[in-house]
């Protein structure tokens, strides 16, 4: 599927050249041998679904991460990796989603952070002020030099970050999801600044989920999927549909089969779920034996929604019915657990005590029985439940830190299944685990439903949700833009992605 890159062989050194760059994180492959060439002076977009490996690739390019295999070159200099300073020395400046502003310093001081100008050993305040205003002028940015960074908007801080990069003679600007946190009019400002920079000859590499801006700004677009470069081609060779098609891809073999058992009575029903600024009036109903999938892009609110249902977002509100009975909106996880509603969180690092063994993690938070632990009985019970999730029981005694991602996920699922809940809220159960474990995890979810549990599951891997879900809620911008049953003709990748990528405006129309 690797189309040959269309650019003609050129004698000039590319700004960035990755050859076979590969990165593995504790057993799971994040980037599997990527070949990407960024020509000097171009705008190069990296796109792909969540977990496709974009950020990891960006990390290797910016020198933050060392490639396990293959090479990364910046202007022909091979990076050793693991040291951001290295690529910086070659003129590469990275702007991450987490901005690196010192909140208590002024805008000007932040721009000259680590690169202050001095005269006769003292700060050259006048020179810096002149240069600051010059930069503002050049980029048509209006941020008062004396404003404190903490009083500035994300957009303004981002501008300062870019100015800092230019001041350090940056010739390549790398941006990770630069517009994710920006409002529409702020995006326009960023686009304008990026265009000014391109006109000055700066090379720009950016990651984005916003396909419109990708198609608008880029000279070259590279699509990643499952850690591999699917296609890298000039802007002219792409259309919105072909981009989506390459991003989502087609999985040949089915990982799991949807259950054929009938759904039972309604178990959980939530109405008008809100979290100011994040979730806007979301409704959901789940019946026993049913798997409801939630899909949406990063920032669409699906994870926050699950956390709200489980009591992990105290600021959320809504009307909740469990088994048809009206109950108070949960403000603590503990309360939800008592009602038989459990959250299996997204991040195994957050949800497991990594230094503890599997059995202890399995029992953590359980409140039945006396104060003393019965190790033997605990091991037996944990092993039994772990077996349901195809977990090798002999490894329950090992610290979960030493387990693979797939096995950690199985421990996590077993831990929550051990509560024998009525409702499972499962966030990203297959992220970063290998394909075999994925199949086992997905199959176990179908089996849970077949046993009568109500399951709500999110995944960025759309095919996986489509394979096992009875219904799908499509999230965009904190709302559910579509609810699709498995017998609906729209229950397919293309239709769902179209809804998920709907912009804020069409979002308004849908409601």
């Amino acid at each position: 599927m690797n189309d040959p890159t269309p650019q003609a062989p050129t004698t000039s050194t590319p700004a960035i050249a990755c050859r076979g760059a590969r990165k593995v994180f504790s057993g799971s492959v994040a980037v599997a041998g990527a070949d990407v060439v960024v020509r000097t002076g171009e705008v190069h977009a990296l796109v792909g679904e969540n977990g496709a490996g974009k950020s990891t690739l960006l990390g290797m390019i910016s020198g933050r991460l060392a490639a396990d295999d293959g090479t990364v070159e910046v202007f022909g200099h091979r990076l050793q990796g693991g040291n951001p300073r290295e690529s910086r020395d070659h003129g590469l400046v990275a702007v991450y989603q987490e901005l690196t502003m010192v909140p208590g310093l002024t805008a000007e001081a932040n721009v000259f952070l680590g690169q202050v100008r001095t005269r006769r050993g003292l700060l050259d305040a006048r020179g810096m002020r002149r240069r600051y205003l010059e930069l503002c002028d050049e980029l048509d940015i209006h941020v008062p030099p004396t404003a404190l960074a903490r009083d500035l908007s994300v957009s303004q801080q981002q501008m300062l970050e870019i100015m800092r990069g230019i001041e350090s003679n940056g010739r390549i600007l790398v941006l990770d999801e630069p517009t994710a946190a920006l409002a529409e009019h702020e995006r326009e400002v960023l686009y304008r600044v990026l265009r000014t920079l391109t006109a000055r000859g700066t090379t720009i590499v950016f990651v984005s989920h916003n396909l419109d801006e990708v198609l608008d700004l880029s000279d070259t677009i590279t699509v990643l999927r499952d850690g591999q470069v699917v296609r890298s081609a000039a802007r002219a060779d792409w259309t919105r549909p072909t981009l989506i098609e390459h991003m989502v891809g087609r999985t040949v073999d089915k990982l799991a089969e949807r259950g054929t058992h009938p759904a039972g009575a309604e178990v959980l029903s939530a109405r008008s779920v809100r979290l100011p600024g994040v979730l806007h009036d979301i409704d959901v109903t789940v019946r026993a034996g049913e798997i409801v999938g939630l899909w949406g892009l990063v920032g669409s609110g699906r994870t926050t929604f699950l956390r709200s249902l489980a009591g992990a977002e105290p600021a959320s509100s809504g009307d909740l019915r469990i088994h048809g009975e009206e109950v108070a909106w949960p403000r603590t996880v503990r309360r939800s657990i008592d009602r038989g509603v459990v959250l299996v969180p997204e991040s195994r690092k957050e949800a497991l005590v990594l230094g503890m063994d599997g059995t202890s993690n399995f029992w953590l938070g359980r409140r039945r029985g006396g104060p003393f632990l019965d190790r033997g009985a605990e091991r037996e019970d944990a092993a039994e439940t772990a077996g349901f999730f195809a977990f090798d029981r002999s490894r329950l005694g090992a610290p979960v830190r030493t387990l693979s991602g797939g096995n950690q996920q199985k421990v996590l699922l077993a831990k929550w299944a051990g509560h024998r809940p009525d409702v499972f809220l499962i966030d990203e159960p297959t992220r970063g685990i290998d394909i075999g474990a994925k199949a086992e995890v997905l199959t176990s979810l179908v089996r849970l439903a077949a046993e009568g549990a109500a399951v709500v599951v999110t995944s960025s891997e759309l095919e996986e949700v489509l394979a096992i879900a009875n219904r799908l809620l499509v999230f965009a911008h904190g709302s559910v833009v579509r609810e699709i049953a498995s017998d609906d003709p729209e229950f397919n990748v293309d239709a769902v992605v179209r809804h998920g990528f709907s912009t804020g405006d069409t979002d308004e129309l849908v409601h």
Partner: protein
Amino acid sequence: MNSSTDLSPAAPAAAAAPAGRPAFAPAVSRFAMIGVLVALVVLATALYPGFLSPANLRDLLLQNTAVGIVALGMTFVIISGGFDLSVGATYALGATVSAGVALSTGSPVLGILAAVGAGVVCGIANGTLVARIGINPFVATLGSASVISGIAYLYSSSAPFIVADPNFKILARSSVASIPTPIVVLAVTFVVGGVALAMTRYGRNIYAVGGNHEAGWLSGLRVKDLTASVYVLTGVLAAFAGTIDASRLGVGQADVGANIALDAIAIVIVGGTSLRGGEGAVWRTAVGLLIFATLTNLFYSLNLSQNWQLLAKGAIVLVAVGLDSWSRNRRS
């Protein structure tokens, strides 16, 4: 609850999971401190032949009973991911209150109870500052240490309470089966503390809070209550330790215990409990205490000055913490 759900094993897994990293290296370093202790004892016996005599061992333990009891509480705090610098002040308050109340009421028992009560109050205050208000434990207990110390001075009007009542000295001067009571108390608290930490649900929850606060909360633990509880525990133990020393000396005064916090932390860390929380054990603190006591005793018998002791203790703490940080950096 859906009690009908039957979680029978899944069909056999397709392939065995890849093996994790070998757990060999941690196993070696796990017991390294026991080796250090044995080496120290051998060295001490060589340099000072009377080291292993019952009389010397008894003195060694008696001198370190108070700091040992404080270190036990500190073990809980550190495993929970916290820190308590106020134990020295609470120890002094315990000594002052027990002697003062014993004097004014004429009842040593009331004195002990009042001291323990004062420890509970100090612990609740620390727990509230750290767990509910969310102040960094280092700063919170540094501040409360000063407040507690001030209270001890105010209560005693900066003068020692000298208790002539022989009953007041029973706690420290009596014996159980010819073993001095303080040593028995030390052993009992360590056994109870060790069991609580290793074999009860409460203990496991403390490890979880220290190992991964977020995971504990998402598991439905009352993370704030658990965090606060360890400060109450150290408060009680520190005040009780002060009581034992007041009983031993027959005097309760506010200007004692200046080194206790640092010494207790040193003991916990030297035993191999990590300052980062979530890891450690009471038996480690016992080993740390014995190492510490052996060193002190050795310095004493070799007639080395206090200054050398101070220097050596500090160096040992830094080496222990340095090794812990270094091994973790290598792991990640």
